[in-house]
């Protein structure tokens, strides 16, 4: 029986091992955690409204929810409302969906929940987005002139290219287990952007932080409430434990 268990566990190892080795795309970078950094989230919201909202919607997100990250309704009205004049409205895209489909081949997906839906074996959805927005490169073979390392043949052009500049990935060919494999080595900057690479990473970090917050605006208060609930239950458990012991003492 022991042997059988060991065999089964070993077999499980083979299956999972094979699965892990199958992932040949670029590993996702860890996104910085900005969920408690209000200035970063506000900067992310600004980038989101300026760069993303023209084509993507956030159909379940209301503008006035941005009060949760420290903005006043007046600030939201003055700085972030482009597609509507009511702060109670949800974030709709400026583009007409029919046109979008014609231009990009697919309707740009709604971004409200993108940080949740993109999670996977490689990491959280935030990790994915943080890597995705930093690995665009020039590819003359594509209609838009852009391609991406974690989303090959992506329909979206590099919207943030002015900030990052144009880049090209460098590969080196190596012998691995008797096969020639192309290994990603680093980037070659073709033309500089407005931002330095460090500034750009920080800006994308803010934007991804905002997307992550927008996917579940209640998540910070959820964790805060949870701590109190668990503290209460911890004390409650002690009481119920002693109560039980008192009843069973003479049994």
């Amino acid at each position: 029986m022991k042997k059988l268990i060991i065999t089964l566990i070993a077999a499980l190892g083979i299956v999972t091992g094979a699965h892990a080795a199958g992932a040949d795309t670029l590993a996702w970078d860890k996104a910085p955690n900005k969920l408690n950094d209000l200035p970063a989230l506000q900067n992310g919201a600004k980038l989101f409204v300026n760069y993303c909202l023209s084509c993507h919607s956030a159909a379940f997100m209301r503008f006035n929810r941005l009060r949760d990250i420290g903005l006043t309704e007046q600030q939201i009205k003055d700085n972030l409302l482009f597609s509507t004049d009511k702060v109670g409205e949800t974030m709709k895209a400026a583009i007409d969906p029919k046109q979008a489909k014609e231009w990009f081949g697919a309707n740009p997906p709604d971004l409200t929940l993108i940080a949740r839906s993109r999670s996977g074996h490689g990491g959280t959805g935030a990790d994915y987005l943080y890597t995705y927005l930093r690995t665009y490169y020039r590819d003359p073979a594509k209609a838009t002139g852009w391609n991406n390392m974690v989303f090959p043949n992506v329909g979206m052009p590099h919207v943030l290219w002015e900030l990052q500049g144009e880049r090209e990935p460098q590969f080196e060919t190596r012998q691995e287990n008797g096969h020639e494999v192309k290994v990603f080595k680093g980037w070659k900057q073709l033309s500089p952007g407005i931002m330095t690479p460090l500034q750009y990473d920080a800006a994308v970090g803010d934007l991804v932080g905002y997307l992550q917050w927008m996917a579940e605006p209640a998540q910070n208060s959820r964790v805060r409430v949870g701590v109190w609930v668990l503290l209460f239950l911890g004390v409650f458990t002690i009481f119920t434990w002693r109560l039980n012991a008192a009843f069973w003492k003479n049994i």
Partner: protein
Amino acid sequence: MAEFKEISPNATATAKLVNWFDNRFPTAGAAYRDHMSEYYAPKNFNFWYFFGSLAMLVLVLQIVTGIFLTMHYKPDAAAAFGSVEYIMRDVPWGWLIRYMHSTGASAFFVVVYLHMYRGLIYGSYRKPRELVWLFGCAIFLVLMAEAFMGYLLPWGQMSYWGAQVIINLFSAIPFIGPDLSEWIRGDYVVGDATLNRFFAFHVIAVPLVLLGLVVAHIFALHDVGSNNPDGVEIKAGPKDANGKPLDGIPFHPYYTVHDIFGVAVFLMVFTAIIFFAPELGGYFLEYNNFIPADPLKTPLHIAPVWYFTPYYSMLRAITTEMMYALSLILVLAVLFVIVKTRASGAVKGLLVLVAVAFLWMFNAFGFTGVGLLQGIDAKFWGVVVMGASVVILFFLPWLDKSPVKSIRYRPGWHKWMLAVFIVDFFVLGYLGVQPPSPAGERISQLGTLFYFGFFLLMPWWSRLGEFKPVPERITFAAH
């Protein structure tokens, strides 16, 4: 009607009130005594006996949170996904109610699986508790339907395609299959009609059945009395002056305070998941389900939620090759019966005929390429195996032939059988989550054979080995 009882005018207000009700509604008092204050449960319940009451707790939580969810949820293909996000964002504390309900679904299966495993290790389904077990199995089956239909309601990609795949399974049934699956969907694809009927079933029809079965389960249990870790009948043991078993103890207050402690510990785990990891790594809320359902975009990898994956694995294990293996097992079994038993020639001949018919249906002669010999596709048998993997649980009381109930007094290697069974169940569950792979397919086929071997060969193996003597009374050390 019971005798009208007068009470002394000097009695306390509480006693008067109780008496007033007792004279007008004696049923309530009798039920309280039968099921709580004078229901005698064995003293030696251990950790495993928490999960029945916890299943009740989760059932109540699901009903209450479900009622609040329906106040804002819209069963409409165009509005369902958005209404769930509305609950998550705009309804005050809506996120909490929704996470309680989604975590509760998984918690329900966790406690029910542990509850069933308790029955398995202590032989709680054995005579005279067969009916308790049958009601329990029916609850499990109905719970699966409830969970499956509830999972469609958020109308995400996984909801949609999971339902599409499972309903399509019915189309593998010969002759009526395609019409049957269309009838279930109410459309050619999963659509608005499907969502509406699943909503109706999920919020009222199935919960009603579930509640009725739970009542039957508990009434039947309280009629025959609870089993215990020793598998000893406390009713057969010594009794006190009032005819109450000495090894028993009133359920209330002793097991109510005991269960409240269990509830507190359970709630710590449950709320930790709700507040700190409501997705639980994509197992309780799948990542793909945060994308609205899109009938034109099939996800790369469709898998049911974790609690269905062991059965899903068995479904996927049934390939054409596997059918040849099953055909071989059938032939060997028939040969064994013919050689080893003393049945008459006519019976044996009939057996061979039935076996050949099954071999034909199993498509065992499919390799010949002759049209007339073509049997039924392996896909159908996969569905049969998946159904059988749950239905076989109903037969457990008659499959187990062990002379003792509890695992405590069964041979050591029986414990190993149960342990391997659990490992097998986990491995099948794990493989069901993963995308198909050649190695995974082989392992799930072995796992399927072990799963069914465990049950179907139980009348044989459960008798074997050296059994320990069962004590006269329960083993209980005073606290």
